[in-house]
């Protein structure tokens, strides 16, 4: 068992005073309950990780009303104080495109894939999935 401290700094902007929320899960277990991000916030939490496992750290972004513009950005990702921003370029984001908008885009011949690599800004609801393994520092050494 190893304990790793994660810190995720998020930024938000909105045109209608409705701010995005963020919930953080490790695999299917909630680590941080849905919390509103007003302008900017750093969420810090510890993860207890078992040996030789693969994990998914899931950042769920919600509260987009499909009215007005609302952007949520990952500004910084840290593990035990180590900056992992470069690794975010390899992380997939899974946007939930608004149905009506998505259909219009398809009709206009614009294809939007189910997952987007390296997106740090998300204007829809959706989630980021950060996959990693343990021992965490061995994974970190091999992947960053």
């Amino acid at each position, binding site marked *: 068992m190893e304990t790793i401290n994660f810190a995720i700094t998020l930024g938000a902007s909105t045109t209608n005073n409705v701010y995005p929320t963020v919930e953080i899960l490790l695999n299917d277990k909630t680590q941080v309950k849905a919390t509103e991000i007003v302008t900017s916030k750093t969420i810090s939490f510890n993860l207890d990780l078992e040996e030789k496992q693969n994990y998914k750290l899931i950042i769920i972004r919600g509260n987009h009303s499909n009215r007005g513009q609302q952007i949520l950005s990952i500004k910084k990702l840290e593990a035990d104080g180590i900056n992992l921003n470069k690794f975010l370029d390899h992380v997939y984001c899974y946007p939930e495109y608004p149905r009506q908008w998505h259909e219009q885009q398809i009709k206009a011949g614009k294809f939007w894939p189910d997952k987007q690599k390296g997106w740090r800004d998300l204007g829809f609801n959706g989630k980021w999935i950060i996959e990693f393994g343990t021992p965490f*520092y061995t994974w970190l*050494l091999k992947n960053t």
Partner: protein
Amino acid sequence: MDPKKKYQLFKKHKHFCTAPWNLLYVGMDGTVKTCTHGSTMGQLQEHDIAEILSNKAFKSLRQEILEDNITNNCRSCLKRENISSAGNFTGIRNHYNGLGVHSSVNYTDVSKFELSALDLHWSSICDLKCVTCWAGQSSSIAREQNKPVNHTPTKVANRIIDFVTANQGGLKEIYLSGGEPTLIKYNLKLLKQIKKRPDLIIRVNTNMQWDQDNKIVQEILKFPNVLFTCSIDGTGEKFEYIRRGANWNKTLSNIKFLQSQPNVDIRANTVFFVLTAQQLPEIIDYFMEEIGSVDHTINPCGMGQYHLRCRNLSNEIKSLVRKNLNNTFEKYKHNLNIAGNLKNCLLELDNEGSSNEYMKYFDDIDILQGSDWRKLYPELT
């Protein structure tokens, strides 16, 4: 070892290098060094391999590295990476650290060694007499000059082969150099005993003059992951002048042969000296763009041939070379190896020239072999 400690060594220490824990470097006469830039740590004619790899010199060096000190052993390698301004260019240390990431050795234990990489130069047998080379590294030059040929004794070579065969489980890279590795029989004996694993890369530094049915080449090609580094110091007649005894058409034919092998990548290396300075950008472009080379290394002129260094070119030619190299640097600035090497070439040009002895050197070669360097390089005379 503790993964966090390992991460800190690799990522937080400024001078950490895994080579003393993972690399077996064997020189021409059976000397063991830490790496190509490092010092001699023992002589295999006098001591066992295991004994050398855990001797006082190795332990002391590992301890210094753990303390993040710059040692005399590592100074020239670290200097090379520090004087370059090509971004994150980190030289050979980074190469070995990349292999060390996968090693299970405990780097905090200064007495430990676990074989991950092998750098074999164990003979100077070579069929060429390149103008940048010397008797110590080419048996053909040694014979021409009536000097002894450097060659690891068979008894010692067999001990090395036994050691590597027994410890091949964690091996990630075998680097065969020389001399000319396709002429060194020990390589065949060794490679026959090495499992053909996809996670093991065979790197070969060759003069490209081998026959395609050469047994060592054929054995190398049985490995799933092979990288041939072709020594190229020019094209056509200039290539043949510099690499005395070589044939350009044979080189091209062998390059085509290697291009047809699905398990082979090709790269090239060129020595930066008075005869290559002007053609260097063209050579790099030819290999990178037409041959499909994965990389290109430009080596400084060494082996005692200091009169051949580019600092000795005329100011007029230096200025022209500098301009061309700056353009080439710009073109390859995202290739850290090429960019770093070019930066070092540019730094060489900044030195004051001290001699035009290279003219007499080439005149003497012309007398030996009936060639005419002045006709090939009129601008240098």
